[in-house]
């Protein structure tokens, strides 16, 4: 169990490294289940690779890849039978760590008294199998947002502190990926209990696996694995290095925080507002978007009330509602809020970028708006501005 939620603390050095085959993957699911974890990982469903509870490693997307473009997601068959050679799917791990709908507390009128009760449900104990490098960073970012400030969110804290993370290094980036620009991949950063790198070559289908925590090492010791050989290690490293060269997208070479702060009046925001539908898809699929709203309900007696928390989106007109109307009424202001927060003001609020370069917002935008293209357009605008406007 990796309980350290400080993103600045590197994981302990890989104390153990092994190589295992597909049988090792089956054993891994069994070992985690045996330890009481609910194993969640990628599987094919409804024409996509989704995250779901796994009963066996056979449910992993062996032999499936994805084709990703702006506004487009397609599954395709892979002849090599690889399980993890597919970029980010529509969901991220926030679905499990920061659920879309949570009962926070209830209130009951008992005679003259009102009694408030925190939701008593014990947090589930998840083992996440296949946390891609970009998503591993996203978890670290949500750690900071939801448990790193003066107040801790108990729902996230409970789920996160009990979670076991099996990371996967990326060897097959999608057409919308830009983790290299954001410094989050394709190699895995700290924060995992175990990390896998998948290799499929003439020597067979295998996984180079290392531990990043004591419990990770314990689990690793239970698996049918043999000592790491240099050929597998080299092939794995080469696969990750090659992935870094095949990013489908890049961010402009600029300080994105400064770029966002300096372009609040750019005409490009009107341009993107002409395309954006304010549907909020980008915020739902983003692995770091954390905003929520609340809903208060009562039962028919009127003596039992509940407080629910639901995912919200800064694209919703109600999001900025004050008496007198919304602060951000125009589409321009709402898209600008999302993008400048993600790439700029997130640093001020939480000490890092809010973007991990996973590309989900590009894939799942129904009108194919591309955050890297918008950033590039803003960058071009700052460079083309006449000097007298440059201040």
């Amino acid at each position, binding site marked *: 169990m990796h309980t350290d939620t400080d993103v600045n603390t590197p994981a302990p050095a890989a104390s153990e490294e092994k190589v295992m085959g597909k049988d090792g993957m089956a054993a891994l699911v069994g070992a985690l289940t045996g330890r009481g974890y609910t194993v969640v990982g990628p599987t094919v469903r409804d024409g996509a690779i989704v995250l779901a509870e796994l009963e066996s490693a056979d449910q992993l997307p062996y032999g499936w890849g994805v084709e990703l473009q702006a506004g487009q997601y397609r599954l395709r068959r892979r002849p090599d039978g690889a399980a993890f050679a597919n970029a980010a799917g529509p969901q991220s791990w926030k679905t499990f760590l920061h659920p879309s709908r949570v009962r*926070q*507390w209830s*209130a009951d*009128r008992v005679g003259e*008294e*009102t*009694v*408030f*009760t*925190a939701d008593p449900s014990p947090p589930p104990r998840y083992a996440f199998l296949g946390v891609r490098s970009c998503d591993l960073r996203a978890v670290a970012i949500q750690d900071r*947002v*939801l448990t790193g*400030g*003066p*107040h*801790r*969110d*108990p729902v996230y*804290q409970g789920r996160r502190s009990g979670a076991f993370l099996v990371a996967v290094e990326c060897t097959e980036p999608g057409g919308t990926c830009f983790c290299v620009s954001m410094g989050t991949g394709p190699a895995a950063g700290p924060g995992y209990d175990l990390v896998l790198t998948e290799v499929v070559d003439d020597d067979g289908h295998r996984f180079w696996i290392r531990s990043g925590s004591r419990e990770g090492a314990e689990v690793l010791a239970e698996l049918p694995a043999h000592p790491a050989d240099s050929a597998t290690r080299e092939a794995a490293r080469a696969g990750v290095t090659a992935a870094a060269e095949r990013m489908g997208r890049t961010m402009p070479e600029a300080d994105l925080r400064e770029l966002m702060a300096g372009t*609040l*009046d750019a005409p490009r925001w009107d341009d993107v507002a002409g395309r954006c539908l304010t549907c909020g898809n980008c915020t739902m699929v983003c692995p770091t978007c*954390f*905003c*929520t*709203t*609340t809903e*208060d*309900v*009562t039962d028919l007696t*009127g003596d039992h*009330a509940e*407080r629910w928390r639901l995912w*919200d989106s*800064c694209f919703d007109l109600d*999001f*900025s*509602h*004050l*008496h007198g109307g919304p*602060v*951000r*009424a*125009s589409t*321009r*202001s709402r898209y600008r*809020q999302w993008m*400048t*927060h993600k790439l*700029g*003001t997130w640093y*001020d*609020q939480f000490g890092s970028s809010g973007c991990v370069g996973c590309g989900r917002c590009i894939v799942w935008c129904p009108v194919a708006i591309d955050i890297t293209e918008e950033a590039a357009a803003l960058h071009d605008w700052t460079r083309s501005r006449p000097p007298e406007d440059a201040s």
Partner: protein
Amino acid sequence: MSTVTPPLPYRVAATEPETADTRSVELVPAGRELPPFSPGQFAMVYAFGVGEVPVSVSALRGRHGGLVHTVRAVGATSTALYRLREGDTVGLRGPYGTGWDLDAVAGHDVLVIAGGIGLAPLRPVVHTVLDRPAAYGRLGVLVGARTPDDLIHRKEIDDWRGPAAVGVTVDRPGPGWHGAVGVVTALLDRIDLRPDRTCALVCGPEVMIRHTARALTGRGVPAHRVQVSLERNMRCATGHCGHCQLGPLLLCRDGPVIGYDRAEPLLTVREL
């Protein structure tokens, strides 16, 4: 660090009408008590089954020793709170936010400037200064409202005349109004302002805050010695819901009170 918990039950000890749509409510703990509040901080006040809204404390200690909140009925929840009666129970969380920086104000002339219900979060500042006059320079209180009937804490404002230089103005006078008419910034010309010794604390509608802060800096009060209390939508008050963002700020955490030197560039961007 603290973990977010459910509200604590508080009982309404007294209510006091302020205007046709505004009422002050004094709350005492029905059991466990929240940690002490500072002037400018706020609580999340929950009306059973209706909702929860952020409300600044308008007095740290009422007649019954409880926390006083002044509520204007504008939405479903604030209307439910406005309708509270003695003996009713609400839920309370807090204290939240960064209040007025009174340490920075000590030794200076204190100029409190309020628009409408913006006087509520400033009232504990006036109480604090009046309780310890030696710690501060001169006290000025300037209040603006739409009409005489929209003035809150009206009797108390009269009590402040004497220990403080008090100015009151309204946009639209009614019969029997003999005071000033016009925007609150016009009152700045009627007081003996010492810009080099003054700390100003401002709360009201955002447009009023902008004009007032500009008028103060225009008269030579440095922007960092003008504190303003801002408002945005707020769902959690604990920095997790994202609603109260104002550019780089989370107003529930970094505010609601911030220095005008930080606020100015943010308030001049439309729809930020």
